[in-house]
């Protein structure tokens, strides 16, 4: 796994040096858009909507559209004026019970690994959190975005779940909610409850797989097996290592036999044959 970030968990007076890793990955198959005439990938270019010229990276600035067609330009200096807390720290603010956090708040998951010098403090906080059954609420900076996060323990590791700020959760108030409960019959409710009980199991994620992705992949594999692929520029063929080695050996023998001729300008070399240990 690639380290995303290195920093420290700040917990009371203790600083625990850690490395952070992305914990989940999306395995959706990615498709490229190709130009049908050439079977080559489509490129994307940044074209100015006014002069229709391509804009170089250094010619691009960021603007906030505060009303249609009017922008506030934000330069790097402007962003630098905003006071940022230490970008290399996960600051623990409070401890709460996991059940109290509604799953809608969870965004992305990251693993934390102790860095040099942090092993003991890391184990200490893991054990203390297991004992109390609490999770930590913390502030963290990831790629210059400040996030709220929950720190919890998963199989002896600390896991950071970034969580949305309350104002980022949309209210469902405007959505309709079916009928009033007085419209339900006792019998209907009992049947539904029975059905739920019958289908109840312990959660085992290994039982589920992405059947669509699997089917898609099988289709692609079949197309590859049937050589149904296109390439804008045909791949060169591979080659044979053994042939190459034989060619090298022949070439070495040739040079060595030339070297022993008196007419050659290069200094004559002793030895000549390959070492006995060579296969």
């Amino acid at each position, binding site marked *: 796994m690639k380290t995303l970030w290195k920093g420290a968990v700040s917990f009371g007076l203790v600083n625990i040096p850690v490395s952070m890793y992305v914990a989940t990955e999306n395995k959706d198959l990615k498709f490229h858009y190709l130009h049908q005439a050439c079977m080559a990938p489509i490129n994307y270019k940044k074209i100015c909507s006014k002069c229709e010229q391509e804009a170089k990276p250094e010619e691009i600035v960021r603007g906030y559209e505060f009303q249609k067609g009017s922008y506030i330009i934000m330069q790097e200096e402007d962003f630098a004026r905003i006071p940022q807390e230490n970008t290399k720290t996960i600051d623990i603010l409070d401890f709460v019970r996991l059940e109290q956090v509604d799953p809608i708040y969870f965004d992305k998951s990251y693993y934390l690994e102790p860095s040099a010098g942090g092993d003991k403090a890391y184990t200490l906080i893991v054990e203390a959190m297991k004992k109390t059954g609490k999770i930590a609420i913390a502030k963290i900076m990831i790629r210059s975005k400040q996030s709220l996060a929950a720190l919890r323990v998963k199989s002896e590791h600390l896991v950071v779940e970034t969580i949305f700020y309350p104002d980022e959760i949309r209210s469902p108030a405007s959505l309709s909610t079916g009928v009033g409960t007085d419209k339900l019959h006792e019998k209907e409710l009992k049947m539904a409850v029975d059905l739920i009980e019958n289908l109840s199991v312990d959660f085992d994620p290994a039982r589920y797989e992405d059947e669509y992705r699997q089917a898609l992949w099988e289709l692609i594999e079949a197309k590859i097996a049937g050589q149904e692929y296109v390439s*804008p520029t045909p*791949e060169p063929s591979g080659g044979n290592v053994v042939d*190459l080695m034989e060619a090298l050996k022949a070439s070495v023998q040739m040079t060595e036999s030339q070297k022993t001729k008196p007419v050659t300008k290069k200094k004559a070399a002793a030895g000549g044959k390959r070492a006995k240990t060579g296969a």
Partner: protein
Amino acid sequence: MTDELGNIRAMEPIRQTAVTDRDDFVYQVKWDGVRIMAGITNGRVCLLNKKGRERTLQYPELQKLPGLLQADRAILDGEIVVMKNDRPHFPAVMQRDRAQLPNTIKLLAQTLPIEYMVFDLLSLNNQDLRKLPLLERVAKLEKVFADQAQLHHVPCFLQGSSLLAAVQEAGMEGIVAKRKNSAYHPARQHNDWFKIKCSQSQKCMVGGYTLHGQKVNSLLLGVYRDDQLCYIGKAANGLREEHWQTLSRELPALETKRSPFAGPVPKEAHFIEPRLAVLVEFLEWTEAMQLRFPVIQAFITANAADCRI
């Protein structure tokens, strides 16, 4: 997974610029690929690169190793290469090395099959061999497996100069000189292994330049890959003063706004349409697929198809 390999670190050759033929050395081809140590433990295989990162999943071909060895436990050291156009092709092996998704790996194993070029044996059936002289390790290695498809011994030669000449002629990366009685030391902590690299050459398109004041002081080079011109670095060496003067007169007049390159280029870049081609010699490809120490040899007549990797 990495238990068998433990904390073993790869022995790395020290760079030298020339080769001398010596009786106490043997010489091997330096295969241009990815250095991989393979730990085999009772039917299981674990692969690590020289930085100690696990690469077991990337090379499923090597899962068959246990069945091919005359040993239950062993640690092999070697180079994984992918052949293209009858030569080891570094960009192709990097493509294998970077693959992450199981499906992609499975697919690439068919389209870009690897060859494991094995040159050392660090342990055999729980016996640490690293203190043994090189030639004894190599002799034991030869008994561990027979040369076959995708699994090869790297032969030892007695003369470095003739091997270097052969490798140079074949357009390969270089050779490694190894002291016959040397133990296996981690990293570069030794005076026993040396690498001597041939310079490689590549036809490149010039897609831009940089200026120092009014003067052109480097050319931005690209090669085509999947019909995109990929930036592979800038070259400032190899040309005479009069060439730079000519370029300084001609190139700014051809400047275009649009970058012909796919992907990022240096900030100070000026661009031209990719029509001018050069032949460069360089030491090696970096992992970011750029040229290390490119030296311009000549301006050449070449089209996009010639400047491909």
